[in-house]
């Protein structure tokens, strides 16, 4: 039972790190990045390649940095020029990017599933209240907790965090107060993309790597973001945790329906509250 809860935390934690990047970008720019899952996927592959050469910790760092850089590039070359357009335009352009990135990964790393080994240091398991649990999975939970904590502190105390929170509450008033979203968005989008890269790498030892893993996680994180309420950090956290648990208990008790449960949960939440758990605005 405890092991199940912990496994749910692992999955929920990974989902949270990916989803919170979407929330950050949505909060500031009011757009949804359909290529976000691809950033996660590229992060996993970059991590895979670097880990083969320079070890696991180097891989985590490099993947996060490379993806942060890619995020900055995405902001400057795509999101910024499109900000006056209908958000749907950005959706479709980033969807085009998704296709290109998936093809790119297929070209560089091949179509076959790749498996990244768990770092030797964490390959054992730990005993928790008499039940053994893989040490690596504990690390994933710890990283997710650190990201959640670090991010909420950053959002509270930094000026950029203030702008992001203000903008996600009311973009128009925020702009009228003289906040120039362009000046902070490079940092925010880079952070969101970097988190996608980070989660890609740390989830790589738990998943089979394939170019299509990006669209899978994209759909899952969309569910998290929609259930949580678009633009809400707390909502995304709660939704990721709930979906992590639901997903995991589903796999154990109703395996044939497990993949359906998050979707049903989403539809139920939307009937109950069309703007998500924490959402007062979309």
């Amino acid at each position: 039972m405890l092991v199940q809860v912990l496994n749910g935390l692992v999955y929920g934690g990974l989902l949270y790190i990916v989803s919170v990047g979407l929330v950050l970008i949505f909060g500031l720019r009011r757009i949804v990045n359909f290529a976000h899952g691809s950033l996660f996927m590229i992060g996993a592959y970059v991590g895979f390649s670097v880990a083969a050469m320079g070890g696991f910790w180097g891989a985590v760092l490099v993947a996060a940095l490379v993806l942060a850089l890619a995020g900055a590039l995405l902001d400057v070359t795509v999101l910024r020029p499109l900000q006056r357009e209908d958000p749907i335009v950005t959706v479709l352009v980033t969807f085009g990017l998704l296709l290109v990135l998936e093809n790119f990964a297929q070209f560089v790393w091949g179509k076959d599933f790749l498996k990244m080994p768990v770092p030797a240091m964490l390959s054992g398991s730990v005993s928790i209240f008499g039940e053994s649990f893989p040490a690596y999975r504990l690390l994933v939970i710890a990283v997710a907790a650190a990201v959640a904590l670090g991010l909420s502190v950053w959002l509270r105390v930094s000026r950029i965090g203030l702008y992001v929170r203000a903008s996600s509450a009311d973009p128009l008033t925020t702009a009228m107060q003289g906040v120039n979203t362009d000046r902070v968005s490079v940092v925010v989008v880079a952070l969101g993309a970097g988190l996608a890269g980070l989660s890609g790498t740390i989830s790589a030892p738990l998943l089979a790597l394939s170019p299509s893993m990006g669209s899978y996680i994209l759909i899952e994180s969309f569910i998290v973001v929609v259930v949580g309420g678009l633009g809400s950090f707390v909502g995304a956290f709660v939704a990721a945790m709930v979906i992590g648990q639901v997903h995991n208990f589903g796999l154990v008790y109703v395996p044939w329906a497990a993949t359906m449960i998050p979707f049903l949960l989403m539809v139920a939440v939307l009937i109950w509250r069309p703007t998500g758990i924490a959402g007062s605005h979309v």
Partner: protein
Amino acid sequence: MTAGDAALEEAAPVRARRASPVVAAALAAAAIVLGGVFAGAVQSTLLMTLLTQAIITAILATGVGFLIRQNGVVSFGHAAFYGMACYTIALAMRHGVMPIEAAILLALVLPTALAFALGLVIVRIPGVAFSMLTLAVGQALYEFATKARHATGGDDGLTVNLPARVFGVSTSLFQDPHAMFVVSWAVLALVVLALAAVAASPFGRLTAAIRENEERARFIGYATVLPRVLVLTLSAFVVAIAGVLFTLYNAFVSPDVLHWSLSGSALIMAIIGGPRLIWGPAFGAIIFFFAKDMAGDVTEHWQAIIGVILIVVMLLLPVGLGGALARLWRRGAGHG
């Protein structure tokens, strides 16, 4: 010029045409006859196979495009309705519970009903979130089809045991590229005509008004949820027609017909062709198929190619290739 102005501008000729149902019927008849003559003139089975696939998918894209045109929202999940139609026939035939004609009817009704029920929940969700939701809902159905192996055969798919005759017509006719081209082409012509009539009707103009400003339409006193639900329902119905044709033609279904990449392709066709025109998405579908065919040696990179095309069209030609063509045509007519 905003997207809305452009949409109304493009819609104008359709309104003018509506004035005479006789002209519209004549146009459809001419298109159908032309299709028949064309199929008779072309010998190449390869070309007809390609075209038949393109036309069936064009009907799918037309449904997706109609939703963009009337509701201003982009669906990433229409394969759900398409695939549901395919699987309805496949499963009904597998268990032999009903005659094929009833199965076809059910294959049209079920996705339409699902779209209506779903629409009541999701049309209130604006813009970008709607796209995210349709993607998720569509993929839910895909997951279900791959997991329910005992019923659907999972990833292996199902061979559809069609009877010898469908609606009194030999089934082999539906699997002959030449004959099926004529059938699909005629269906496409009728669908485009019907959708043009809907778009030009008071209902079509009401939904266009809601698309432009939902709040204002509500203030004037219109109910704004139900019309949008009906547009979604109608677009799902069109998509289900395409699913039925696909199943009759291929006599095989696999979860690919539910996968989001099919929804995505249909969406890309609609965007490339120009969803502001009723016929734009169908035009886009045909271009898509020929471009894919021509890509030939580099099909491995087809996904990247189509991604780049999508980006370029979005950035440089938001009216789509069909829209650009229509503009040229009007300019030519204006001078002439």
